[in-house]
């Protein structure tokens, strides 16, 4: 079984090496299919490994294997250790499964791009990094994976590197993630100082011995990493910009896998977070605020991918709420379903954009359901799942989180519950605003121009792009059935062993109640969206009148977070750097020794040689004065 896991981990890096070395010698399509095939095999291995894991008795499902010592110094040593358990298996399946689909999709998506081989290599690199992240059995290796996914994310966001906006977005993402990396690194240092080890088993075993303060500080630092990677408040600003990258990337990295790593981290470190209940509360608060804020901002965005991006942020905030409430299973469950429906929405959006020759503004779309019926159908499934409508997958998972909040029955729980329901309303509105503006209402002039031609030539899109969407639709529609309250509990029982302290499990009654309320709220949101957007884009007039205008503007500027960071960090940093360069380093360290000392010495030299004027009488005079000086000196001294 562990061999299969190793193979799963190794395959993508083999892909990277092969693609990098063969490079242009490979036909573009061949490279795409090769990378996809690798992912398929990896998925197969992961699936078989999961089945083998499931066939073991529950207490033997935690496998740790050390390959070799990676780094050591004194009594510090970390190895290339694999950790394979139920949580890892879920992540593994999502990464390789969704990863495979998106690889296939990319073949079609990138078929006209001359650099598609590079794209495929980057994709494989990302998958490898992500697998490393989830498979690691110690914090250093986790950090390595954590950083490498950041790197691949950087490479892929900036894939079209002649677009300055894309490069700027890529850098922003990388730097914000670097802040997160640093957070985790410091957390690791503190844990090492406190516990003397960085392996999961060591940390989990020693967690109980930590004081609450120690545990809280360590958890806070890990949380910094989680927030940065999962684009949660206040480190979220990179995610919307990251939409400058190719759409498959948005689907894979910025929806299905990488951004959920924060949730994975918290779930993984649940024994540690258990020691820091205040941090868990903080996570819930951040989640609630984040999901509401992202939902509100999503209401007014006009870029189709940005809307989905803010929705991603909002949905991950739900997961944070779930894990923050110690209902780890529900958070991961939502992560699981979200991978399907959000990847689906992104890929669907990609098809729309493809059909519109790269147009991303939903105001330039409209009425596309006739031209793109299959896409419309699939995206509708995704939209319903996202809005949490029973019986689509999102409904089950989101309601599981909210039901957990209900069952906790603390002030925090109630905040989460009510906030989550409000978020569900927003979700319904912004999701269907998107759906109605893209697929319903009258077609915009731009779309009218482009679409007939596009559909005539390409249909709805190449089959490599359509089939992944179909498969994801099936997942988005039915993945929730794994966990029907009171009927099936595959997910819960599968994940239960990962938390030694148990998890919050709502009763079936609480779940059904929440499902009912959630569906009603979601449908209400859809109704509002229908009222506002289904026929004409009436909302702008509505909102731009009166006091709502200011709010609208603020939401459009994403509540000024970017401006805040620009004025508090970016500009002061540049200013300080320029100041140090111009006014400190150059005069104090580079100018002074050179010109100052050198010129001064030369000046002394020149003044001094003035008496060496060539006239022998002068020389004799100096001689005479010297004689006088020496005699005087000796006589005066005694």
């Amino acid at each position, binding site marked *: 079984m562990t061999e299969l896991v190793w193979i799963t981990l190794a395959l993508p890096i083999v892909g990277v090496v092969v693609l990098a070395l063969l490079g242009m010698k490979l036909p573009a399509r061949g490279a795409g299919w090769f990378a996809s095939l690798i992912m398929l095999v990896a998925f197969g291995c992961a699936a078989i490994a999961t089945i083998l894991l499931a066939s073991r008795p529950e207490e033997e499902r935690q496998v740790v294997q050390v390959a070799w010592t990676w780094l050591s110094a004194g009594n510090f040593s970390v190895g290339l250790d694999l950790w394979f358990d139920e949580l890892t298996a879920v992540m593994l399946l999502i990464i390789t499964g969704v990863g495979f689909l998106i690889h296939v999709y990319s073949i079609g998506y990138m078929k006209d791009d001359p650099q598609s081989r590079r794209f495929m290599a980057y994709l494989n690199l990302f998958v490898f990094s992500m697998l490393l992240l989830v498979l690691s059995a110690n914090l250093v290796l986790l950090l390595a994976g954590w950083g490498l996914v950041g790197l691949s994310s950087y490479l892929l966001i900036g894939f079209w590197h002649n677009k300055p906006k894309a490069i700027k977005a890529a850098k922003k993402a990388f730097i914000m993630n670097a802040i997160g990396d640093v957070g985790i690194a410091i957390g690791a240092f503190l844990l090492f100082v406190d516990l003397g080890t960085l392996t999961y088993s060591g940390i989990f075993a020693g967690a109980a011995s930590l004081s609450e303060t120690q545990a809280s500080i360590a958890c806070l630092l890990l949380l910094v990493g989680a927030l940065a990677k999962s684009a949660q408040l206040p480190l979220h600003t990179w995610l919307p910009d990251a939409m400058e990258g190719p759409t498959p990337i948005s689907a894979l990295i910025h929806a299905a896998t990488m951004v959920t790593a924060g949730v994975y981290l918290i779930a993984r470190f649940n024994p540690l977070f258990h020691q820091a209940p205040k941090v868990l509360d903080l996570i819930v608060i951040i989640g609630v605020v984040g999901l509401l804020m992202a939902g509100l901002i999503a209401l007014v965005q006009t870029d189709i991918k940005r809307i989905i991006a803010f929705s991603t942020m909002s949905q991950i905030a739900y997961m944070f709420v779930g894990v923050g409430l110690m209902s780890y299973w529900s958070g991961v469950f939502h992560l699981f379903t979200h991978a399907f429906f959000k990847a689906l929405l992104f890929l669907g959006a990609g098809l729309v954009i493809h059909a519109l020759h790269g147009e991303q503004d939903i105001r330039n779309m409209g009425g596309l359901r006739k031209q793109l019926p299959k896409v419309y159908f699939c995206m509708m499934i995704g939209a319903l799942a996202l809005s949490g409508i029973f019986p689509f997958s999102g409904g089950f998972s989101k309601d599981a989180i909210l039901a957990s909040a209900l069952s906790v029955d603390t002030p925090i729980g109630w905040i989460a519950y009510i906030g989550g329901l409000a978020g569900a309303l927003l979700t319904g509105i912004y999701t269907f605003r998107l759906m109605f503006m893209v697929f319903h209402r009258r077609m915009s002039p731009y779309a009218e121009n482009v679409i007939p031609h596009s559909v005539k030539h390409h249909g709805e899109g190449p089959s490599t792009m359509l089939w992944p969407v179909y498969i994801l639709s099936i997942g988005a529609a039915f993945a929730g059935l794994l966990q029907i309250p009171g009927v099936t509990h595959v997910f819960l029982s599968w994940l239960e062993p990962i938390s030694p302290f148990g998890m919050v499990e709502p009763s079936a009654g609480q779940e059904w109640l929440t499902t009912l309320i959630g569906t009603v709220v979601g449908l209400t949101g859809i109704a509002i969206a229908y009222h506002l957007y289904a026929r004409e884009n009436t909302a702008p007039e509505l909102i731009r009148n009166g006091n709502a205008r200011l709010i609208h503007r603020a939401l459009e500027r994403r509540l000024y977070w970017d401006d805040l960071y620009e004025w508090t960090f970016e500009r002061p940093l540049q200013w300080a750097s320029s100041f140090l360069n111009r006014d400190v380093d150059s005069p104090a360290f580079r100018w002074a020794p050179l010109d100052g000392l050198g010129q001064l010495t030369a000046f002394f030299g020149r003044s001094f*040689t003035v008496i*060496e*004027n*060539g*006239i*022998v*009488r002068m020389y*004799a*005079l100096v001689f*005479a004065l010297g004689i006088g000086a020496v005699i005087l000196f000796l006589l005066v001294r005694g």
Partner: protein
Amino acid sequence: MGVSLNFFLGLSAILFSVGLVGVLLRRSPLTILLSLEIMLNSVNLTLVAFSREVGGSDGQVFALIVMGIAAAEVVVGLGLVVAMTRREMVLDTDELRTLNG
């Protein structure tokens, strides 16, 4: 023994100074050579004076040697002056300043 040592020493110091001032003030190479001779003679005077004071003839012998060497000195000096004249150089030491700095 009417004249004390200090008188001789004083005289020699004056002679030395005269010679030195000559070197400092005069610009003719020949005068400078003359001034040098005066200085040498002040040394000789000192030597002889001390020789008388100390007893023995060492100082006087040394004075003789100094005289001999002074003669050689002048020969070399005059030779140089002659060479300078033959190169049509101005016999003014203040003009001898192509070498400076």
